[in-house]
């Protein structure tokens, strides 16, 4: 690992942690309706929204009402996005005349964006009209993120309140998350990204002259439109000369800003943030990468403020950061070490001042190894799933790190809202395990953790591994599942496992060699995303409701303090043991076998 690599990683982690308190404190003031600047200046807009939607912001909801409102809103959003994709061919703002999307792909994408997964089964610039990108995808980028934040705030109120039967108003939490947190941050980030070269225009794709024309071979078609065959039955090719380059553009910056901030990750273009128009410079890369973890990290502090004990928030943030930083220092050297198969060919993979070296297949030169591997860890630690390099071409173990981070349940920072509520559920399990060991009734933040909470927590923790493992098992057993694989052998298995790990934890990144835009994968992964999102959100809200109704137990000599290094270790242990136990066998079949084959051969 080079000195510069260490420096870039250090700067990134320090800036991220430095933002946690100011942004976290601001968000706490927003959710508690204390003065925070924007929520006073824009208050008329907020009131107008409630009036237009006939909502009384003063009315609080029980957890069941909260869950129904959340599910209904998400369902309607999903249906709207489905319809928009199917109809885009006849709708305006479609300068490239792209046709409507197939039903299975439209279902997959609608689910993908409503669940904050943003798995891309399609290539943006060749599939989606500007209207669909804006009115469909950008909107879901905002509201799916705001939905996660609302669920988190509801759970937080469960801890903060005593003997209460309500956990807040979903519409208010949704509106405030969007209006005061996501929109301002996204607007600023979008404009900074434009200054770096991210495109933002409604003009059609631009054609420019090439300096050197390109010729390529194309199958020759007969008069009947069929490929011509020679006497031996081989296809006849004809050379085609290309003298121009068509540059795909569009309103990209506005979508990219929120795709990063809302841990969505669905790119404007096919290759996501590897595309120079989506991520043109090292600075744009740094900011996009910061935006991935910014809100999830800051929400830990928000949580601490709202439960009236900021140490609790810091403890959770510390647990996340320890795992995150450790895995950075595993992934970056693995990628920097390069591919032994290429060393055998005499290729120079040594990092020097004049070249990044390492495993550069699928990576962009301006980001090099450090920023590609760091991004991969960040985007899978969060449930973001945007990529600035092709994970499919990572070294076997370098690619296993992002896969495993998803399999841990997307709780190392995790998705906006969903990551922290997932981690709080792990904390509930951790105090339960500790309670069993010391023989006391477990408590967390003054609330007794009883059978009902532990049952709900178990659901939250066990459903994702179930979805991932069963989905992978089904896909490798059926021909339509295996037919989509791009790389043979152990790596092909990794492609399928990665896809279900991504969908089953609402991440969205991919080993993109897998041709996932097929009816089988569109449907199977669509279902996995639905289960992973709502089968977790609803039990979480149930815990919120149950906790809110409880009284507070005073902290006594027998209570386990949950802000100490000991608890941080216990929490990390719980996350790792559940993740490790559930997935080690299946990881051994994919990345580990491939690693042994690759390094054994060379």
């Amino acid at each position, binding site marked *: 690992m080079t000195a510069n690599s260490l420096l*870039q990683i250090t700067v990134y982690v320090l800036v991220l942690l430095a933002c946690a308190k100011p942004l976290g404190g601001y968000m706490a003031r927003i959710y508690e309706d204390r003065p925070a600047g924007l929520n006073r200046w824009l208050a008329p807009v907020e009131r107008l929204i409630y009036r*237009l939607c*006939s909502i009384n912001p003063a009315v609080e909801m029980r957890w069941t*009402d909260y869950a129904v*409102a959340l599910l*209904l*809103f998400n369902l*309607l959003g999903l249906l*709207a996005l489905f319809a928009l994709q199917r109809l885009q061919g006849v709708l305006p703002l479609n300068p490239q005349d792209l046709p409507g999307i197939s039903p299975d792909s439209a279902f997959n994408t609608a689910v993908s964006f409503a669940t904050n997964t943003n798995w891309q089964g399609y290539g943006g*610039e060749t599939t989606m009209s500007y209207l669909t990108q*804006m009115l469909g995808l*950008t909107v879901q980028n*905002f*509201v799916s993120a705001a939905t996660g934040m609302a669920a988190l705030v509801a759970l937080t109120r469960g801890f903060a309140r005593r003997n209460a039967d309500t956990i807040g108003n979903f519409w208010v939490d*949704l*509106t405030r998350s969007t209006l005061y947190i996501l929109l301002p941050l996204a607007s600023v980030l979008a*404009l900074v990204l*434009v200054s770096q070269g991210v495109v*933002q*225009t409604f003009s059609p794709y631009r054609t*420019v002259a090439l*300096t*050197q024309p*390109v010729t*390529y071979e194309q199958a020759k078609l007969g008069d009947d439109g069929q490929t011509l065959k020679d006497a031996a039955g081989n296809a006849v090719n004809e050379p085609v000369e290309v003298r121009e380059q068509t540059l795909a553009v569009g309103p990209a910056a*506005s979508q990219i800003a*929120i795709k990063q901030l809302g841990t969505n990750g669905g790119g404007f*273009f*096919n*290759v996501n943030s*590897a595309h*120079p*128009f989506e991520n*043109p410079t*090292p600075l744009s890369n*740094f900011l996009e990468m910061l935006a991935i973890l910014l809100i999830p990290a800051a929400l830990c502090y928000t949580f601490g403020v709202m439960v009236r004990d900021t140490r609790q928030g810091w403890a959770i943030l510390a647990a996340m950061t320890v795992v995150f930083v450790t895995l950075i220092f595993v992934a970056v050297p693995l990628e920097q070490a*390069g591919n032994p*198969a*290429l060393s055998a*060919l*005499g*290729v*120079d993979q040594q990092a020097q001042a004049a*070249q990044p070296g390492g*495993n550069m*297949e*699928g*990576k*962009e*030169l*301006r*980001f090099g190894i450090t920023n590609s591997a760091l991004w991969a860890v960040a985007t899978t630690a969060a449930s973001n799933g945007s990529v*600035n390099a092709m994970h*499919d*071409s990572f070294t*076997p173990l370098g690619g296993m790190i992002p896969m495993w981070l998803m399999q841990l349940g997307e709780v190392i920072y995790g998705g906006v809202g969903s990551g922290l509520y997932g981690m709080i559920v792990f904390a509930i399990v951790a105090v339960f395990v500790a309670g069993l060991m010391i023989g006391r009734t477990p408590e967390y933040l003054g609330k007794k953790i009883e059978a009902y909470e532990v049952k709900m927590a178990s659901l939250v923790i066990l459903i994702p591994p179930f979805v991932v493992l069963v989905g992978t098992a089904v896909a490798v057993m059926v021909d339509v599942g295996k037919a989509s694989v791009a*790389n*043979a*052998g*152990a790596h092909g298995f990794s492609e399928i496992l990665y896809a279900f790990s991504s969908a089953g934890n609402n991440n969205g990144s991919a080993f993109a060699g897998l041709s996932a835009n097929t009816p089988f994968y569109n449907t199977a992964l669509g279902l996995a995303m639905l289960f992973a999102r709502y089968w977790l959100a609803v039990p979480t809200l149930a815990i919120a409701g149950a906790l809110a109704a409880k009284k507070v137990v005073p902290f006594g000599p027998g209570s386990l303090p949950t802000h100490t290094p000991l608890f941080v270790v216990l929490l990390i242990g719980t996350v790792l043991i559940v993740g490790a136990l559930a997935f080690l066998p299946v990881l051994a079949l994919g990345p580990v076998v491939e690693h042994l084959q690759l390094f054994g051969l060379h």
Partner: protein
Amino acid sequence: MYVHLKPAFLMLLVLTLLTGAVYPAAVTGLAQLFAADQANGSLIPSADGDARGSRLIGQAFSDGKYFWGRPSATAPYPYNAAASSGSNLGPSNPALVQAVSARIAALRATDTGNSASIPVDLVTASGSGLDPHISPAAAAYQVPRVAKQRGLPVAALQEFVERHVELRQFGILGEARVNVVELNLALDRSTSLKPVR
């Protein structure tokens, strides 16, 4: 349940207008006002008014007199900027070794006598298939070939290339790099480089 249906529907409508229409339109307006060049694709102007490409999007070069960029995996031809794509070849895929071997052979064939080891970025496909950059090492590797093909002194071309190296942003972020499209355009335009008689 039905009591929530109406607010859910109206809320989706209002938030769609706010985040799907007002927000992108406002960002577009400001972007076109303050950074029109970047917002429209950072095009490279030419004397006749037609753009000669984008500073951010690579182009395919296979002629020996030009510096070559990263291999591109876009279909059906390299550097198709209307359909970005990586190769997605796994590290243990024999097709990766074949592709890299073929690229090494092509580089060696146009540059017989150059036995320096080849920087990895020059023989591996970029993630986007549109990467405009190569490493300074990959540019330096090609200097002898380009100098020979253009009849230029190696030292002068080496110095010309070094002037086109972009350093890490703020000295820290990213990697040092050379923009192949801009370098080749500058090379075609240059009057300071004089062929060796």
